[in-house]
Structure formats: C-alpha cells, structure tokens
C-alpha cells in the first residue's frame, strides 16, 4: 500500500481531476486516471517530502468557510478602494508578524490564503526568526492584522497540520 500509494489522497485527487477534465466515468478513463495517480504519487515520493500530518478534516472545513467569507469581504473592500479612491482613509504598508507555526504545509496554506485574499499579499518569510512579512493595501491598524493572521488562520492551521 505505502509502496505503491505513498500519498493516497493525492493519487485519488489526481484521478478525480483527470475524470473531471474528461467528463467521463468510462472504465478506460478510470484506469488511465488511476495510473496517473499512482505515477504522480510515486514521483512525489521521490522528492522525499516530510509527512503532511493532516488529521483534522473538520477544522479544515471550518478554515475553508472562514477563508471564503473573508475573501468575499476583502473583495468588496478592495473594489471600493479602486473605484472610490477618495473615500480611502489609510495608506498601504508592510506588517511583520511573528509566527508560531513551523509546518511547511501549514505555511504553504497560509501563503495561499493571504495571497488569494485581495488586499493582503505574502511578501517575505524568514525561517530563522519565523517572521512573516505581508503587504496590506488598506493598513489602518497593524495590530488588527497581526491578530487576524495569528488567531483566525494560524491557530486553525496548527490544529490541522501540527
């Protein structure tokens, strides 16, 4: 099992993507997708990645819901800044946040979340000091952004990956 499918979830995901792209459930395509999944998993195994430690699907769902809501809110906020620049009362700037999380997968997820949300962008990360620097378009309160990242995202991500 672990020899042929070192990453079963990833292999399954690859097969599902293949079937979705071809929009079919024909046996031939299932076989092809499964082959793709096995090859993909084994290639990834060659990279000798650390285990993901993913264990809390419920926490992951809660995080996803939170992120979707936050992205909706920041979409509106950024659209307002662009379309009504006169109403803007803050300028942009950098925020340095010291993190507790060390898991590379958690950090990758955090990077995707921060960058995917309009108005914030992951700029730099210092692994020695575990210090993250983000750029915020509408920087009113630096402390509020630090609290958002650490309390809203980091704690849940640590629950999921650590």
């Amino acid at each position, binding site marked *: 099992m672990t020899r042929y499918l070192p990453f079963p979830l990833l292999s399954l995901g690859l097969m599902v993507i293949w079937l*979705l792209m071809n929009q079919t459930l024909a046996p031939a395509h299932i076989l092809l997708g499964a082959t793709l999944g096995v090859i993909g998993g084994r290639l990834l195994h060659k990279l000798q990645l650390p285990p993901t430690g993913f264990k809390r699907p419920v926490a992951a769902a809660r995080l996803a819901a939170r992120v979707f809501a936050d992205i909706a809110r920041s*979409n509106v906020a*950024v659209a307002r800044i*662009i379309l009504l620049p006169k109403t803007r009362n803050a300028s942009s700037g950098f925020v340095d946040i010291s993190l507790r999380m060390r898991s590379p997968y958690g950090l990758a997820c955090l990077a995707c979340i921060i*960058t995917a949300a*309009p108005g914030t962008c992951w*700029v*730099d990360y210092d692994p020695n000091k575990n210090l993250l*620097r983000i750029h915020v378009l509408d920087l009113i309160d630096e402390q509020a952004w630090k609290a958002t990242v650490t309390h809203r995202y980091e704690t849940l991500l640590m629950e999921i990956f650590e």
Partner: protein
Amino acid sequence: MMIDADLPLWLATLIALCLLVGAALSLTGSIGLLRLKTFFERIHSPTLATSYGTAGVVLASILYFSALQSRLVVHELLIGLFVTLTTPVTLMVLARAVLHRDRYGDKTRAPGDERRSTTKR
C-alpha cells in the same frame, strides 16, 4: 450556443447575476492595475479577478450548463482550483523580485527600512 428559452426566469436571473458580479470584479481588478500608484498596491488588484471574479463566472457556467444539459456539470471547478493554486505562486515570485530589487538596487530603499513602500515604476 443558443439561448434556451426554457430556462426558468429565476434561474436565468441568478446566472446573469453571477456572471455580472464576476465580470464586474474582474474589470475592477484591471482598473486597479491602472489606478493604483505603487507596485505593492498594484499587486492586490488582480486578486479580485482571480478570487471571486473567477468564482462568479465559474458558478454561472456551472448553473447554466447544468440546467441546459439536465445533469451536474462541474468540471469548471477545476478552473477555480488551478487559478487559486497558481496565482499565489506568481504573485509571490513578483513580490520577492521587487523586494530584491528594492533591497539591492541602487535607487529605491528597501521596504524593510521604511514602513511605506516608495517603489515607483
């Protein structure tokens, strides 16, 4: 593709709404690229198009073709997946390249030394 007259009004309205919201967000993102002044401000505006701009259009497409073909058409979700996974990589590479230029370039100051970016392009 012909417009199906059998589509119920509420569904057609919903699809049109999704499509318009998605398109409006994408357009706003593009306007932002023109309007915002510095690089680090501009880097935020395309994310409008890649987050709910894409989501709106994808949702409209899923609803429309699912109703038209009377089956669940969801392969558009892959567009959302790929866009969400690839955009952060592009933006981070861009941001770090500019950070590097600001730090080691001869004209502008490093963002680390200044709270506000003075990057001009």
